[in-house]
């Protein structure tokens, strides 16, 4: 909608203007929400989208609009249906901001194409004299133009708007009072009403912008939480990639030993039988599969068992899924294990600390079995999830290849269309 209005406005405005020129408006027929609205709106839309649907309308706006109307004849009190109908659909957006009543006309005008407006207007004039007239009268009644019937069209040029914004910011958006703004701007041909209506639009616009921003921020925040830092923003992308780089390398350098120590606390003890440290460690990883949880591991240095959020997470990566499938998966979003790295790990989604590699990848999705042989069910579940919820963030957030190069490659392989019409 927002996007649409401006387009419509500008397009319609031009047409409207043409329309107006060829059209001699009767004095009594005055558009409440007239083309002038449009003209007015155009400038607005250039500056900010007028897609607002504020219910409150300054009564004077109508007058302003009337004044804006570029017809030579002075605006009279009763805006008639003509004006309503003339209203090009584009003005609908600005119109509906201003008056509840106007919405009616807006909708009616919405049906009329701009070029046909003239004809329709004339015709409709007969049909809805009352409605429009009433509306016009009503609105006129509402808005008291201090100057009487005369309305001066305010052309909100970018320059003018800039000064306006300056004044508003000087006063503070919330505290900006039209009269003060007027003073600050020091422009003669602006009435307080002009300012007031402009201010209203401006505030609406800002609110809308802020709301959108907030939504975007919260969305990306959420994604960050889930993805452990994988914020899907351009800015974050670079950072993310950098973050990614290190972890990939890290595991290889870290090697086995460190990771081994903490995690498995209450699960296994190194196979002292073998007495071979490296062997032990490597076996540690895979033991879970074969051993039943042995006596609690006393010697674990760092995070003592109790420091770990008990079983489930441990199980999830230490024990093969087919043993402890039910324990699987901490709820999505839990930081991955291993405990010895929790907080620091969080930001980097994949913390392949070597050993329980997959374990770490607890991201959003139904956990990765984290084991050597992912179960078919988990894989299937994960895949199904991706297919049904394409909006989910990518677990790894790898840099995507360029579409073109993929297409080229595929074509080399003999595939010219994707998605392919025939499945594999």
């Amino acid at each position, binding site marked *: 909608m927002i996007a649409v209005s401006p387009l419509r406005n500008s397009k319609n405005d031009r047409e409207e203007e043409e329309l107006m020129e060829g059209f001699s408006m009767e004095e009594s027929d005055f558009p409440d929400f007239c083309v002038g609205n449009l003209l007015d709106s155009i400038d607005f839309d250039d500056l900010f989208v007028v897609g607002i649907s504020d219910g409150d309308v300054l009564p004077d706006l109508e007058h302003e609009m009337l004044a804006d109307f570029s017809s030579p004849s002075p605006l009279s009190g009763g805006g008639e249906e003509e004006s309503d109908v003339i209203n090009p659909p584009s003005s609908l957006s600005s119109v509906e901001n201003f008056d509840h009543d106007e919405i009616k006309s807006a909708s009616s005008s919405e049906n009329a194409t701009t070029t046909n407006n003239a004809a329709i207007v004339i015709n409709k004039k007969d049909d809805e004299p009352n409605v429009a007239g009433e509306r016009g009268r009503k609105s006129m009644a509402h808005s008291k133009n201090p100057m009487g019937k005369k309305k001066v069209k305010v052309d909100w040029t970018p320059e003018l708007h800039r000064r306006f914004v300056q004044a508003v910011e000087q006063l503070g958006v919330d505290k900006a009072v039209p009269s003060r703004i007027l003073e600050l701007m020091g422009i003669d041909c602006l009435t307080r009403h002009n300012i007031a209506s402009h201010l209203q639009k401006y505030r609406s616009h800002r609110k809308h912008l802020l709301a959108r921003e907030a939504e975007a921020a919260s969305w990306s925040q959420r994604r960050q939480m889930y993805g452990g830092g994988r914020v899907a923003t351009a800015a974050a992308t670079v950072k993310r990639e950098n973050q990614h780089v290190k972890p990939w390398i890290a595991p*290889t350098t870290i090697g086995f030993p460190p990771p081994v120590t903490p995690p498995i606390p209450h699960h296994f003890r190194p196979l002292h039988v073998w007495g071979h440290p490296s062997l032990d460690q490597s076996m540690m990883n*895979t033991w879970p599969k074969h051993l039943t949880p042995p006596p609690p591991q006393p010697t674990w240095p760092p995070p003592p068992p109790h420091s770990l959020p008990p079983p489930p997470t441990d199980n999830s990566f230490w024990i093969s899924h087919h043993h402890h499938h039910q324990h699987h998966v901490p709820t999505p979003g839990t930081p991955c294990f291993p405990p010895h790295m929790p907080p620091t790990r969080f930001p980097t989604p994949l913390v392949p600390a070597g050993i329980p590699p997959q374990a770490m990848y607890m991201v959003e*999705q139904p956990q990765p079995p*984290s084991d050597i042989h992912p179960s078919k069910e988990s894989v299937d579940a994960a895949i199904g999830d991706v297919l049904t919820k394409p909006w989910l963030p990518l677990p*790894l957030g790898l840099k995507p290849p360029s579409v073109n190069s993929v297409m080229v490659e595929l074509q080399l392989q003999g595939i010219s269309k*994707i998605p392919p019409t025939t499945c594999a």
Partner: protein
Amino acid sequence: MGSESSAQYIHMVQHLIEECIVFNMSKEECMEALSKHANITPVITSTVWKELEKENKEFFESYTKKREEKSSSDQETETSQRIQNILLDSSKKINDQ
């Protein structure tokens, strides 16, 4: 097929591949899984995989290395497990005698 739908498709395949990587699967395993569960032509999977590899060389390098280590550790484990079993068996036999 519009370019957008291709882009979306490729993005989806990438997403799926990433999931498989999370499961520590190999490219071949991934191709098989995607073909089986998502009806994606293996050649497409492999192409996207290769492209991803090109774009994320470091990641894939370390991933591959990790997998190798793991597989070798698996082998070690298996071996040691087997040895352990043998020992246990033989010790049992000894006890029985």
